[in-house]
């Protein structure tokens, strides 16, 4: 019987439940995605940071679990705000509060479990899609990684089960304590009190000063060392809270005082936003900080990736050096876009422990070598090598050329000789084909095919630790080191973003039910539908954009830590792009929230013409 009532309750509000259900599914899917990496020890510890990565993921898991908890509670509040009236009615009709409690727990669990199951399936799909996309984008083979991973399924299932049981119990308890009458008339007035001007001002100043201290600490990390992180954490968390609680409210009050507030619903919109910001200070602060964390993780992740081609480019001007390339290698080289190539003749004489080249060829087609002009900023330059440089074993040019030869000849001495001398050497003439590429990332697939063929050609020597040489070898090596770090960074960032945006979305949506009467009144006194929709769009935009702006500023200063510590180069360029991508995802959430909110609160005009 209980189950029947519960089910009919869900049926009658199917559309609202669909919102909740899809939100839950996505949350589960995100958590699963994260767990698929986090619980996979083989994958995390095989990364170059090894054990450390595991700690990062344990920390991330806990953080994500906390956000999930918050999310589940908000989502449940939303659910309960829809059901309050029904439950009140059941109780009026004589249902005992115990029965209602059971009903609530049952409903919460059924919805929770169903969404968890579907969410996990969705999560496997997401994981497969995203990991495939990332690994092809950043050219990292993901060994030991699989989208479906049983331990991840278990940990997701258990966490959500526990969360839903807790949420169900808490909901039931709240209802036990509320009288039937209060449930029926649950659209109570909000208890808005105009904040005192002086308190606002003091809080705003304190907030801004705290943020400034935090930002400065991160900027001055070289000097403050670890202390910078401690100071930054405390001051930025507190500063963010105060800035939301007062500074933004003060700005809105200033806008409200201007005459423009008497146009249309401006006054209503601003005052509602002001009220919401103060009411949501905690969640907005958390969202802002998580936004910073997520964006930071992605920026740092992508930043590492962007450094790879730069580091490789400074290492050697040529991507690969092919000695006596096979026709297959030649055709692969032919397929690379925007390449330049040069061929030198070479004779190897083991008796003199030398590799001979024609000096004339190096005069006609100068050998190019790369060298860093600014190691810290990874700026490098490519120059033509003079014959003198190529004869000097200590020169960068000599080392570059040596690096491009086969692993078998790298221990021999390079000698540039006249054509006559070259012709007199009694050895087979080899060709050395050097290939430069404009865009290492674009050519990566072809280049790795070539180096695979080279590895086979050179055989044992390569496996002994001597690589095939060239910039691409460095590129691949660095990809191995940074690629999985980047993968984790991006993955972590997207998971955090999706979660925090969902949290914000449901917090806002759970307030929609009580907003309904306000919008009905405004409709009656003659506010056009478009005016009502605009007011909603602006209110919600404020709630979405303020934490994002603060988060972006946080990251902008936070990156200084990486830059000052020489860990990351070209960070701000990366930051710009990742902030853009991030904002687009975030805006999609905003759009969905506005759409659902409008559907709930804006009265449908009965006759549309």
């Amino acid at each position, binding site marked *: 019987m209980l189950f029947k009532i519960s089910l009919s309750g869900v049926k009658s509000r199917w559309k609202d439940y669909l919102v909740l259900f899809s939100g839950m599914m996505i949350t589960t899917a995100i958590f699963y995605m994260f767990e698929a990496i986090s619980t996979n020890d083989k994958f995390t510890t095989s990364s170059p940071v090894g054990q450390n990565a595991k700690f990062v993921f344990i920390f991330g898991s806990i953080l994500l679990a906390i956000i999930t908890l918050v999310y589940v509670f908000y989502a449940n509040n939303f659910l309960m705000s829809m059901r309050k009236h029904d439950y009140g009615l059941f109780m009026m009709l004589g249902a005992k509060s115990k029965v209602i409690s059971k009903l609530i727990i049952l409903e919460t669990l059924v919805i929770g479990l169903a969404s968890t199951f579907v969410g996990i399936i969705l999560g496997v799909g997401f994981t497969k899609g995203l990991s495939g996309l990332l690994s092809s984008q950043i050219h990292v083979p993901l060994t030991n990684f699989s989208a479906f991973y049983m331990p991840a399924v278990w940990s997701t299932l258990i966490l959500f089960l526990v969360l839903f049981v807790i949420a169900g119990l808490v909901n039931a308890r709240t209802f036990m304590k509320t009288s039937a009458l209060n449930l029926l008339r649950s659209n109570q*007035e*909000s*208890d*808005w*009190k*105009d904040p005192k001007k002086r308190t606002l001002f003091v809080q705003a100043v304190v907030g801004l000063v705290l943020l400034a201290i935090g930002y400065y600490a991160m900027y001055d990390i070289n000097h403050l060392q670890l202390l910078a992180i401690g100071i930054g954490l405390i001051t930025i968390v507190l500063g963010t809270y105060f800035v939301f609680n007062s500074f933004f409210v003060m700005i809105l009050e200033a806008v409200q005082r201007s*005459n423009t507030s*008497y*146009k*249309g*619903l*401006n*006054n*209503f919109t601003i*005052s*509602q936003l*002001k*009220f919401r910001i103060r009411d949501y200070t905690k969640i907005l602060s958390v969202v802002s900080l998580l936004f910073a964390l997520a964006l930071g993780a992605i920026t740092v992740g992508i930043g590492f990736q962007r450094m790879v081609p730069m580091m490789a480019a400074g290492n050697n001007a040529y991507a690969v050096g092919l000695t006596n390339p096979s026709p297959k290698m030649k055709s692969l080289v032919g397929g690379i876009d925007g390449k330049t190539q040069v061929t030198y003749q070479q004779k190897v004489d083991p008796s003199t422990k030398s590799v001979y080249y024609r000096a004339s060829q190096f005069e006609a087609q100068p050998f190019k070598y790369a060298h860093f002009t600014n190691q810290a900023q990874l700026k490098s330059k490519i120059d033509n090598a003079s014959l003198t440089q190529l004869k000097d074993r200590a020169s960068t040019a000599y080392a570059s050329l040596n690096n491009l030869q086969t692993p078998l000849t790298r221990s021999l001495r390079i000698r540039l000789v006249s054509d006559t001398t070259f012709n007199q050497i009694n050895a087979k003439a080899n060709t050395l084909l050097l290939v430069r590429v404009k865009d290492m990332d674009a050519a990566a697939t072809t280049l790795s095919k070539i180096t695979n063929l080279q590895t086979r050609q050179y055989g044992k020597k390569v496996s002994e630790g001597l690589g095939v040489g060239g910039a691409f070898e460095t590129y691949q090596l660095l990809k191995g080191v940074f690629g999985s770090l980047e993968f984790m960074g991006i993955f972590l960032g997207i998971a955090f973003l999706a979660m925090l945006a969902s949290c914000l979305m449901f917090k806002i949506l759970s307030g929609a039910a009580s907003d309904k*009467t*306000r919008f009905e*009144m*405004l*409709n*009656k*006194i*003659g*506010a*056009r*539908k*478009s*005016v009502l929709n605009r007011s909603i769009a602006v209110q919600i935009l404020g709630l979405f954009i303020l934490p994002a702006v603060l988060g972006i500023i946080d990251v902008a200063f936070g990156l200084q830590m990486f830059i000052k510590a020489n860990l990351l180069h070209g960070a701000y360029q990366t930051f710009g792009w990742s902030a853009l991508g991030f904002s687009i995802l975030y805006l999609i959430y905003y759009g969905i929230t506005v759409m659902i909110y409008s559907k709930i609160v804006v009265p449908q*005009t*009965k*006759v*549309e*013409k």
Partner: protein
Amino acid sequence: MTTEIVRTKDLHKTYDQNGPKPYEALKGITFSVQQGEFVGIMGASGSGKTTLLNIMATLDQPTSGSVEIDGKDVTNLTANQMSDFRSEKLGFIFQDFNLLETLTAQENIALPLSLQNKKAGETKQSVEAAAKKLGIDDLLSKYPTQLSGGQKQRVAAARALVANPSIIFGDEPTGALDSTNARELLDTLTNINQQGVSILLVTHDPFSASFCKRILFIKDGKIGDEIDADGKSRNEFYQQILEKLGTFEQ
């Protein structure tokens, strides 16, 4: 000669007309309200009085028939025209005052004028004038939570009045009030009416209705009867309403 402020002609409203169970809420209602009148519409639940009010208030449209308010046919307006018409010509008093808690009394009262995009100076003047009429000019900077029930009603009444509407509609405005506050609101409405504002009240409460000058009784979607205060005292009129209800509802 008085002018007609509301005139309805053979109003019909059928819900779910093409559905499996069409329901006829209004079955040909014709009546008019003169400028400066205080008219009550009474009827049991489901009699069609709220449907009638919604149609007159341009919140709904009739299936057939016409409604003219202040000489304008409102049955063929677009959604936007309906909204504009409401903000310019109609005032509303709701059951729960419906004041916005985050706005001061002044800002609440100003809402209908803001929706018409009136200039700030003009708005402030009109708000002050309306507040003065209702004796709440010293409360303008207060928030609703700082006001008593009676004060809130007067703010709500000022909001209904501020745009100089052709008529004020009240849908069970005393429904959620205790007797003292209900009495105060009805006195306020009488006061507004005496200053020349037309009022149409929908109620099923005989006490509220006794403040009106004329009452239309609706039953099953039709006007069944009509009585006039005709110079009777409020108490006598109240008795008459009770008697009428006794016979009418049977």
